[in-house]
């Protein structure tokens, strides 16, 4: 359940942020229920909050979430059933669950993927409700809550890096690419571009 906690806290901060941007009470909660994506919803809130158009907000959210297309390809052979069932099972693809379900060597655990996402969905919608209703009284930064998500991802990353030197090289390239691109590109692009780090996996074609 550890992974549902940062989700809950992040959802609260989304509720607080959306409320402060005059989204009202219903829209932020509906957004969390139907979009169910922290990065996508924060992208929309950031762009609209900065005076951007709906189109700009949509483009930003799609760019931020394009990584799920890659992650979806990765889990494709793990999911079960016909196209419709696969489409719905694929909705369990969220960062934390995807990383937790990763068994290494390109294999994924379907039960872990879905099982880890359900509590996060409840935490995400519940946290948003709390943030919208009681948000004025919570100062997330003073409590250091903005550390939760990056720290959580760092913990998962360090576990991955224990799998070998290739993982460290891939992560190093990815981190470098993301760091260089942050000041020059819209949110989301650094994460997509950083996927090139994984291409060192192609090295295997020459070494075997």
């Amino acid at each position: 359940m550890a992974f549902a906690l940062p989700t809950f806290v992040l959802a609260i901060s989304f509720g607080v942020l959306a409320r402060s941007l005059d989204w009202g009470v219903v829209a932020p909660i509906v957004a969390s229920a139907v979009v169910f994506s922290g990065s996508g919803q924060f992208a929309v809130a950031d762009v609209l909050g900065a005076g951007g158009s709906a189109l700009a907000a949509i483009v930003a959210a799609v760019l931020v979430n394009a990584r799920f297309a890659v992650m979806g390809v990765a889990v494709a052979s793990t999911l079960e059933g016909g196209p419709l069932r696969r489409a719905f099972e694929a909705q369990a693809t969220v960062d934390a669950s995807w990383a937790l379900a990763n068994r290494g060597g390109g294999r994924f655990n379907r039960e872990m993927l879905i099982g880890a996402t359900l509590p996060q969905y409840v935490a995400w919608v519940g946290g948003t409700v709390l943030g919208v209703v009681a948000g004025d009284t919570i100062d997330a930064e003073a409590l250091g809550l903005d550390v939760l998500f990056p720290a959580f991802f760092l913990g998962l990353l360090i576990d991955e890096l224990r799998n070998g030197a290739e993982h460290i090289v891939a992560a190093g390239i990815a981190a470098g690419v993301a760091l260089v691109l942050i000041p020059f590109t819209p949110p989301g692009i650094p994460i997509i571009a950083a996927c090139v780090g994984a291409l060192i996996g192609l090295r295997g074609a020459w070494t075997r």
Partner: protein
Amino acid sequence: MDTLTAVWTSIAVVAVANFAIKAAGPVLLGGRQLPRLVVDVIALLASAILAALVVVGTFSEGGGLNVDAQTAGVAVAGAAFLARLPMLVAIALGAVTAAVLRAI
């Protein structure tokens, strides 16, 4: 377009787009096994994406790079992970670090 129209338009379109983005791979590929080369790349994807999420979450602020109490908190959590402390303990140490730095 007033604020609420823009908000609702964005929510509706992003919800549909997000569904399609996640469904694309599993629906189009079905249960097919991927070629060995693709699997080799996918095996390293988690390391690459997680590293990028950490970097963006820690250093990206308003379109620029930023080092602050949050950065210090994430670094402390990272050290705790390397020392093999349990995940919740490591994350809590990071959050407390940022909170204390901001309070002083």
